[in-house]
């Protein structure tokens, strides 16, 4: 697996509805490949386009934020607590929201969009964590900060009016890998009990040995080169000796006893195969996991092209899982209305297998939604619809 060995494996093609957004992502977030010598330059690029918290919260009047500080093994950790303005009588679900950026880039506000969404959709208290990044803080430093944040949330359950039985860890890309690591740590160290772990296009495996990493070498976003650079910043150059599973969860040999996992990944990205393997190993150990792999999806596609059909369907599946793990009733987002000329089954659930009739997501109850427009519009360019983070 030498760094320059390019196998040129045939790669699954991108969904045509996603290619504009892919180009935009590439030009905006990854104008230069991530290399050991330009991590700071890449940090500056990401920082320049990450909306401030104030900007992210504009037009979200039902949501407030506050700044808090947890203490971890390496000192203070900044937290931002995002919660509904109106405090319900019932204790609220909570989420630790961990940002992406390949463990080397980005800050907690990169994931502000996801935190705001969880608060608005589920009435959740969402906590953003400013974990220490590699290479300055390598190895398990990032995941230990995240675990300290989780502990902080559990310790402040009463003050934050949280339901400790409905605490979930979530993140995309590096945030997904860190979420998996936090779940492993919480299991092994007797940490807070988690109701679920959402692993969005998760960065789990430092070994760079899958088919999908060879397929997306120099292709797409968060390609093999970026990924190798990031892991080297975290764990040093290859060959590596023993690697902590908390730092690279794919290294874990025991995936039993974990909270229900939601694993969602693009079919056309480096992380495809490691995500599938992680879900498969949870099942093999008798654990609960849900896996969605989207045809032609690039890394983080759902956040960058939210209007594309695949992205909408990913949002629907994700929402379905949140409502199941948080034990919430009620309707999720509509996919799209039935096509013109489709047969109206009527409101009675007695027809069909029943799966379509009477469903919350049925067209009748849905607000009118236009068909997918060209991706890369305002919604795809940050702001309140900003993706929860990339690698």
């Amino acid at each position, binding site marked *: 697996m030498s760094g320059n060995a390019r196998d040129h494996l045939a790669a699954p093609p991108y969904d045509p509805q996603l290619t504009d957004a892919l180009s935009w992502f590439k030009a905006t977030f990854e104008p230069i490949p991530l290399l050991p010598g330009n991590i700071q330059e890449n940090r500056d690029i990401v920082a320049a386009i990450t909306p401030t918290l104030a900007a992210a919260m504009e037009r979200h009047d039902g949501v407030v934020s506050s700044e808090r500080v947890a203490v971890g093994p390496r000192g203070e950790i900044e937290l931002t607590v995002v919660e509904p303005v109106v405090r319900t009588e019932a204790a609220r679900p909570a989420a630790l929201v961990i940002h992406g950026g390949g463990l080397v880039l980005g800050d907690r506000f990169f994931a502000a969009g996801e935190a705001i969404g969880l608060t608005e959709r589920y009435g959740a208290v969402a906590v953003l964590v400013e974990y220490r990044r590699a290479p300055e803080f390598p190895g398990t430093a990032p995941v230990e900060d995240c675990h300290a944040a989780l502990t902080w949330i559990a310790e402040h359950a009463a003050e934050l009016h949280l339901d400790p039985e409905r605490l979930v860890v979530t993140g995309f890309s590096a945030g997904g890998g860190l979420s998996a690591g936090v779940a492993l740590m919480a299991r092994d160290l007797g940490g807070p009990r988690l109701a679920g772990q959402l692993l969005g296009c998760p960065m789990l495996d430092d070994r760079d040995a899958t088919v999908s990493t060879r397929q997306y070498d120099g292709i797409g976003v968060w390609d093999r080169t970026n990924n190798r650079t990031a892991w080297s910043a975290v764990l040093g150059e290859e060959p590596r000796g023993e690697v902590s599973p908390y730092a690279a969860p794919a290294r874990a040999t025991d995936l039993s006893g974990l909270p229900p996992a939601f694993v969602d990944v693009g079919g056309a990205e480096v992380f495809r195969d490691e995500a599938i393997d992680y879900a498969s190993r949870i099942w093999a150990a008798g654990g609960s996991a*849900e896996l969605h*792999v989207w045809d*032609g999806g690039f890394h983080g596609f759902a956040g960058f092209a939210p209007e594309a059909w695949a992205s*909408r*369907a990913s949002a629907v599946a994700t929402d379905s899982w949140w409502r199941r793990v948080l034990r919430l009733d009620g309707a999720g987002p509509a996919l799209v209305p039935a096509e013109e000329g*489709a047969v109206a089954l009527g409101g009675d659930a007695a*027809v069909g297998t029943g799966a379509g009739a009477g469903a919350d*997501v049925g067209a009748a109850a849905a607000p009118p939604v236009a068909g997918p427009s060209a991706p890369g519009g305002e919604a795809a360019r940050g702001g309140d619809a900003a993706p929860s983070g990339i690698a």
Partner: protein
Amino acid sequence: MSTTEQRFVPVPFDPEVAPIVEAMGAAPAMSLESILASRGETGSPFGDPAELVKGLPITLEDRVIPGPAGAPDLEITILTPSDLTPGEALPALYNIHGGGMVVGHRSWETGRLLDLMSRHRVVCVNVEYRLAPEDPYPAGAEDVYAGFVWTHANAASLGIDPEKIVVMGGSAGGGFTAAVALMARDRRGPVMAGQLLLCPMIDNTGTTVSAQQYRGLGTWTREANDLAWTCVLGEELAFSTDALEYAAPSRATDLSGLPAAFIEVGAAETFRDEDVEYASRIWAVGGRAELHVWDGGCHGFDMYAPEARISRAALDARDSWLRRVWA
């Protein structure tokens, strides 16, 4: 993890699915005798097609079409929007029913098709085929392939756009769907717009972890599966890697050049791992596939637990993929 029992702890069922699986567990297990005894039975446990479409703007037509060369004719049911206009050419779903290749009838899956007809303006062709053990491999596979070729050839008269035929099926029907895709590729037959595989039965070897996890458990147990493969392939080839790929598509060594695949399966069933592997092997050769594994879903969860949240979400995912392959 020291004992065999611990190694094969099953993934638990979804809380909305578990009571249904439990209730079904009371039914007697499938046997060769029960398979043969079912031949005389009529009626669908999932509702009579004529009753299901009653009052809906759908025309239901039973027809008989030619089978494979030298073989009996095939029965099909065609579901068409009643307001189809002359010259209109709609996307189509060519459905192959499930039942382990040993039981079942196309009428059982009318509801599954109606759910999709409620979201898409489509024509559905629902095909019957010969069952094992009376008619072992290749009878069923050749029947459903012949039906697909006929549907494609007669698209114009059926109101179908021949370039927008998606072949679909659940369980054995999913396995047959994968086989039809392989056969169409290899025989340079008609090109399908996509293959929609619902909990497909594709691997005869029973060697995966999930095939071990659902012994005596679930809506399609390991034991039922072993019996079905024995009926289809005979004792000698039942679990052999020498089985042919049109019988057990997991045996195919080349998965390149196939139509876009949609693969859906429950996490709590026998077929989980073989279905995940099939998707992975399609991607590995640069092909198009989409994979959805629903947490806690038993085999055929959408039909047994249609109101469960995972069933409704699964339908949304299918709907989305169909829009994309028909775009």
